[in-house]
């Protein structure tokens, strides 16, 4: 039980990290109609910049400065590159972000090398935030802040620690969700953004500088991705493949949530994070399900790859499977409004 709870929490924290990426991506998409292929590249850039800055000045300055720097880069990219190809239509816009992803990957490998860099969380984030001690049934579940003592973890009691980095990830992501929500619904800038989402020409006519709004939305979106990068990079691994790992899952998330829907992106992120994390921990296969249902199984079928593959082994394809199923059943996604 305590293992299940910790897995669930791990999943939700990963999902919230995904949301920090998908929020910017879906905001940019709904504003400009541009699917930013390089979004995960900004995530990676944030992680690497965070690594360099934290080795210079410490983790907290890096956590603030790296997203700022990457956000400015993103805004510059929008102003000087994306805006110029906007006239040619959506395909060139998508292609230029695709090209940027190539370039960023190569530049990162050039500056920081092809191997993973040792980006460790600061000492105050190392170790568990709390530990769950369970001896069996749920009623006996105990909660201890920080690490549990050796004595408390003697069998039959089982200790499941929850890492502080994960807790920090959740806290930052939730703070970001709240401030983003407050910004969009309760401020004047948010009002302009909301209006520019649907009626950019009208907003422009009213005297607002819509291209500049776009630029800052792009900058803030990429900055959020970089913030996720600093946290994700220090929690997981900071290597050149991190963009590809997270990037495709983020795309799956925003399509499942419904393109352009922030709320949809939130729920889809949490769902996807949980599914991916939980599936890895479950070692059951179709043949186990079959026998649990009491159905007979032929020996030849029992040995086939399909039947013996465990859910943990199938975990990498789950997001894409869900994506394809979602598009077949409900093409506009969980909370999307447009049919694509």
């Amino acid at each position, binding site marked *: 039980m305590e293992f299940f709870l910790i897995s669930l929490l791990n999943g939700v924290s990963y999902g919230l990290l995904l949301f920090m990426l998908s929020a910017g991506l879906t905001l940019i*998409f709904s504003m400009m*109609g541009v*699917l930013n292929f390089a979004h995960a590249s900004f995530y990676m850039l944030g992680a690497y910049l965070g690594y360099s800055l934290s080795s210079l000045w410490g983790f907290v300055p890096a956590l603030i400065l790296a997203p700022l720097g990457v956000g400015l880069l993103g805004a510059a990219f929008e102003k000087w*590159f994306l805006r*110029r*190809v906007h006239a*040619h*239509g*959506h*395909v*060139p816009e*998508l*292609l*230029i972000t*695709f*090209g*940027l992803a*190539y*370039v960023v*990957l*190569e*530049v990162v490998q*050039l*500056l920081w*090398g092809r191997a993973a860099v040792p980006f460790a969380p600061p000492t105050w984030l190392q170790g568990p935030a709390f530990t769950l001690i369970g001896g069996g049934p749920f009623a006996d579940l105990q909660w201890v802040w920080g690490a549990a003592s050796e004595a408390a973890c003697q069998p039959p009691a089982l200790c499941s620690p929850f890492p502080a980095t994960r807790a920090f990830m959740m806290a930052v992501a939730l703070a970001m969700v709240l401030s983003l929500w407050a910004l969009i619904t309760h401020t004047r800038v948010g009002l302009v953004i909301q209006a520019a989402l649907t009626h950019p020409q009208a907003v422009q006519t009213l005297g607002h500088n819509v291209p500049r709004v776009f630029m800052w939305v792009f900058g803030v979106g990429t900055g959020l991705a970089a913030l996720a990068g600093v946290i994700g990079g220090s929690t997981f691994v900071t290597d050149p493949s991190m963009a*590809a790992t997270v990037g*495709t899952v983020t*795309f*799956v998330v925003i*399509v499942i949530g419904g*393109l352009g829907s922030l709320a949809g992106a939130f729920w889809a992120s949490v769902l996807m994070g949980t599914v991916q994390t939980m599936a890895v921990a479950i070692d059951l296969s179709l043949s186990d399900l079959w026998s649990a249902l009491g159905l007979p199984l032929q020996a030849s079928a029992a040995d086939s*790859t399909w039947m013996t*593959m465990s859910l943990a*082994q*199938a975990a*990498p*394809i789950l*997001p*894409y*499977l869900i*994506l*394809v199923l979602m*598009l*077949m059943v409900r*093409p506009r996604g969980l909370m999307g409004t447009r049919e*694509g």
Partner: protein
Amino acid sequence: MNPPRPVSADPLIGRSAWHWMFFLAALMLLAPWIFSSPFEQAVLTQMGIAIVACLSYNILLGQGGMLSFGHAVYTGLGAYMAMHVLQAAGSAGWPVPVSLIPLVGGVFGMGFAVVLGYVTTRRSGTTFAMITLGMAELVFAMSLMFTDFFGGEAGLSGNRVQGPALWGIDFKSQTQVYALVAAYTWVCVGLMYAFTQTPLGRLLNAVRDNAERLSFIGYQPQRVRYLAFIIAGFFAGVSGGMAVLHFEIVTAEVVGAARSGAYLLFTFLGGSGYFVGPILGAVGMVLSSVLLSEWSAAWLLYLGVLFVAMVMCAPGGLASIAVWHLRWIMQPEASRLWRWYLGCLFSACVSTSGAASAIELFYHHQLQSSVGTPLRWLGQSWATDQPMPWALAALAMITGAAGWVFFKRRWNQTWDTMLLPPRGAGS
């Protein structure tokens, strides 16, 4: 969603398709005599394979306005199926001649397009792009899971030298493989060009340009996209089958995202708005992966930068640049433009070599400075820890850029006095 110019209205190609096909045949026949070493012929064979793949991709991108991120699924799965049939022909004695293996790949590529394309082509635009990306990831993830079909890390390998040799053709020599691939390529190029001229091909262009209007006059855009997708899947599979015969091995990377990305990148670089564009792109794809990767460690960076520059400045690709050249060279007063043109070209070369030098210096400094060997570049050896090479690179970049601005302005002024409307490449 509009590529720069419709394919069929191209005056340079549309009028004399047969002449171009004869030209291509002559080129293909001549090539193995000029490039006679097995390595060179292997490169030529790869070009044929890439040409069919990129042209089939352009049925989607250029002609249908469908930006697919998963075309390698169809070339790759076609290749896997072709490999299984090749293996079965060798071990289980299936009566399939080796020369028909590309066709086997084509049929299976088509079959997969029928199944997967049904889901994919229900959407268009960005959602289409996303679904193809999801499909590609799905298939790639599966390729590592189902090891009995995909062969796992090692992949599958087969032997093309089997069965009775018809007229002494046993595919032992690279020349014979080249001949087979060239024949398939020639036929496929012809068929794909013919497809652009059929009513379905024209409808596909209409779907790209304005799907809503097309549905008003009674056609189903979804259906047109689906049919085009199936046809593209067939030719993709043929390309995969040819790759099986050439490489005699299939690994999971043939269905990978990098391969799909390469098809997109080079089809676009070649010029998706022209029928010949993907052919140029495919030749570039093979040349860059074979030669550029030998010359420079930074070749992917060059490729990325070139791609971004192309999207920014010449979205019509290499083909549009060629057409632009033809357009001004054919002007009666073109002689007035030449000196400014050569000036532009020269300064572009200076600037590019400066930038490339800077990149090479940087790469060398980052990767090999600890070894202490100086960089070999442009026939000289450079010490990356000295300021001189860096200053030279910067100087070349700056003077080249300044020269470009100066000559381009002159070129434009002269062009304007010739009272012709279009300016600049591809726009």
